[in-house]
């Protein structure tokens, strides 16, 4: 596609955001991102419907499923403009980015007809039921059980899911559960779609180090999934679960980088005001942050490309480690620039934002694969080094 098309799209998104992210939506600017996920939930759902009315939800989906069929480059433009405008964290992210593409690839026609419209319209919200207390990095160790009732075909699910983002604000959860008695590891799993509003489901918020609660424990006690709500075949849950994670190609990371750039700008502004920008040591650290951000931008462009070279493969493996550690360091830099001011809470929105950055960025290097897991993957899959020995079964 031509540079003109991209420029035109950029202008269109910019104008749309300027027209719509104002008035009652004004308070949402820059809010609701990771760490701030439970800010203004109802208003952010309304914002999702505003986006939907402008056809800006699911722009990367194929047109036959109600998307715009935007290319990667076009989606990048959308994400960048969304980020620049201060667009709030997307309540519909899990549905749009993970559930939808999975259903488009693996779902039945009935499942597509039933679920895609609600995701697109911003009327049904999804959360992800993968992790469990004993299955974090070791996801194969899932213990939640699903048994099918032979008379009704219903699946009865019991177990506990944890770190479920926004479960308390969602309508549906996709659950990875063990459906074959005695199976271990990646075998014998089923991928189920379940409504959260039912008697066997209890959602308990988990209070985080930042004080907020966007994660939850989800307790399943004989909760029910309908037989038509299995994605793929029972026993093939692992395949679906991994494919779903593969849809997260990181396009949203470019929008995320816009937020990172704004955080760095804010840190620079404070450094100018309080004189930290005159300290040679602090200047070096701030410059280093700028360097890392710029490198991240180019790295993301390479990671999102169709490049099939060995280098590109290794870069994709390393990208998460790079951005998450950079962002975590930025949190510490923000606090150091603020100095003793950073010890006080409340009363200053900028300070609050940077304190949240400091605290929540601690999660960046843990969720979606910890630093240690990322380094294993890079070493094993990228550099061909020997695999970690596995202890026992499961």
């Amino acid at each position, binding site marked *: 596609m031509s540079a003109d098309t991209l420029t035109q799209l950029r202008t269109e998104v910019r104008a749309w955001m300027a027209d719509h992210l104002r008035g009652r939506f004004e308070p949402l600017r820059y809010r609701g991102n990771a760490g701030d996920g439970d800010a203004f939930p109802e208003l952010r759902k309304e914002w999702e419907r505003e986006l939907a009315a402008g056809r800006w939800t699911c722009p990367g989906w194929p047109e036959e499923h109600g998307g715009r069929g935007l290319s990667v480059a076009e989606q990048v433009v959308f994400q960048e403009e969304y980020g620049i405008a201060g667009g709030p964290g997307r309540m519909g992210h899990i549905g749009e980015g993970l559930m939808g593409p999975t259903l488009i690839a693996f779902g039945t026609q009935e499942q597509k007809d039933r679920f895609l419209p609600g995701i697109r319209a911003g009327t049904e919200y999804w959360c992800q039921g993968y992790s469990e207390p004993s299955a974090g990095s070791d996801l194969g160790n899932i213990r939640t059980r699903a048994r099918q009732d032979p008379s009704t075909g219903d699946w009865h699910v019991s177990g506990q899911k944890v770190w479920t983002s926004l479960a308390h604000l969602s309508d549906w959860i996709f659950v990875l559960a063990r459906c074959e008695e005695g199976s271990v590891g990646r075998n014998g799993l089923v991928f189920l779609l379940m409504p959260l509003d039912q008697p066997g489901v209890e959602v308990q918020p988990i209070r985080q180090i930042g004080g907020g609660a966007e994660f939850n424990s989800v307790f399943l006690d004989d909760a029910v999934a309908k037989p038509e709500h299995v994605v793929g075949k029972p026993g093939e849950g692992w395949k679906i679960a991994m494919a779903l994670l593969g849809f997260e190609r990181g396009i949203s990371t470019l929008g995320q980088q816009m937020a990172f750039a704004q955080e760095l700008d804010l840190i620079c502004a404070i450094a100018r005001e309080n004189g930290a920008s005159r300290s040679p040591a602090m200047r070096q650290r701030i410059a280093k942050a700028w360097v890392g951000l710029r490198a991240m931008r180019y790295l993301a*462009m390479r990671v999102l490309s169709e490049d099939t070279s060995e280098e590109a493969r290794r870069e994709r493996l*390393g990208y998460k480690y790079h951005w998450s550690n950079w962002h975590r360091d930025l949190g510490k830099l923000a606090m150091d620039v603020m100095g003793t001011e950073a010890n006080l809470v409340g009363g200053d929105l900028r300070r609050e934002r940077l304190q949240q950055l400091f605290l929540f960025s601690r999660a960046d290097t843990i969720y979606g694969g910890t630093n240690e897991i990322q380094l*294993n993957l890079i070493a094993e899959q990228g550099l061909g080094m020997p695999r970690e020995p596995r202890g026992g079964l499961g």
Partner: protein
Amino acid sequence: MDLVFNDEQRFIREEARRFLADKSASERVRQTVNAGTGFDAGLWSAIAGELGWCAMAVPEAHDGLGLGKTELAILMEAAGERLAAVPLWSTICAGVPLLLAVASDEARQHYLPRIAAGEIAVAVAWGNAGAVDPLSATAVVAEATEAGYRLGGRVAQVIDLEAADVVLVPARLGEDLALFALERDAGHEVRRLETLDGTRQIGELTMRGLAVCAQSRLDGGAYTGRDVAGAVATAQLGLAAEQVGAARGVMDVTLAYVAERVQFGRTIASFQAVKHRCARLEVDLAEARALVYGAAATLEAGLGAETAREVSAARALASDLLFRASEEAIQLHGGVGFTWEYDPHLYFKRAQAACSLLGSPEDHLAVIAAGMFEEGAAA
């Protein structure tokens, strides 16, 4: 901006790497180091002559191929990977861009086709090789004479001086700056210096009232006020690419060693402490490399304050990366990493030497910070 190599770039890269893996293998580099010359003449004649790498940097108008900064970076990355002891950086990243920025049409036409043809290697006698702006100072003084000019002064460290057929010498001429070219028979004194990094030659250039003809002055009176920042940025970029390539080279040496070395009944590559350190270096390498090629693309598009900052960013990362990759190489090799026989020290010495050229990482970060705080916007 497209950061994926096109077919031609991929081809250049593969061919360059294949060639150097064969012709600048460890044993060959060691011969150069042991000989103390810092220069592999046979390799250079193949690179400049048969392979025509210098032509890539020269515009088509001067009988070159007129390829861009990305191709330049590709060649330098390949050269760095094998520590190729040739004046490639001096010629195509320092010399050619300086000629293009400052030299008169006649001077360009005199030198560039010969460079493109691989007939001459070039060195630049930067006044201050250790500074982010190496042209910020010069100790060479020129004065006009009836027949031409007289040059006096000493440049303490000129990279590739002895290997070069032509040395470009910036000099002070009264209130002005001027650029001179000294060919081998010009009568200047060249003293080869013993170097820590045996893969790159350094010489001391001395001119004692050296009379040169009027044509030796290349800038046609136009150097003063001419923008040489683009030429310096190209030199920085080439050095960064070379450092990233060297980091790749030393990491591959390390990866090969830890995959072979067995302790406690298993290869040391299977220990997580070793894996994680290699993986972290790989992440840093990808970061520095992305920045090098991103900066190459922006530099190709034109030079602004932002571009200069990106090039400095690439240098800061590449210098740190190569040093850490080579110090980790010594550490992960264990005892043999400390020996002359194994390769890590070759890269380790290159790492330190390259880090000191055209500004340390701290210098580059200081430049970036100045841009952020004294010249306006941040990110």
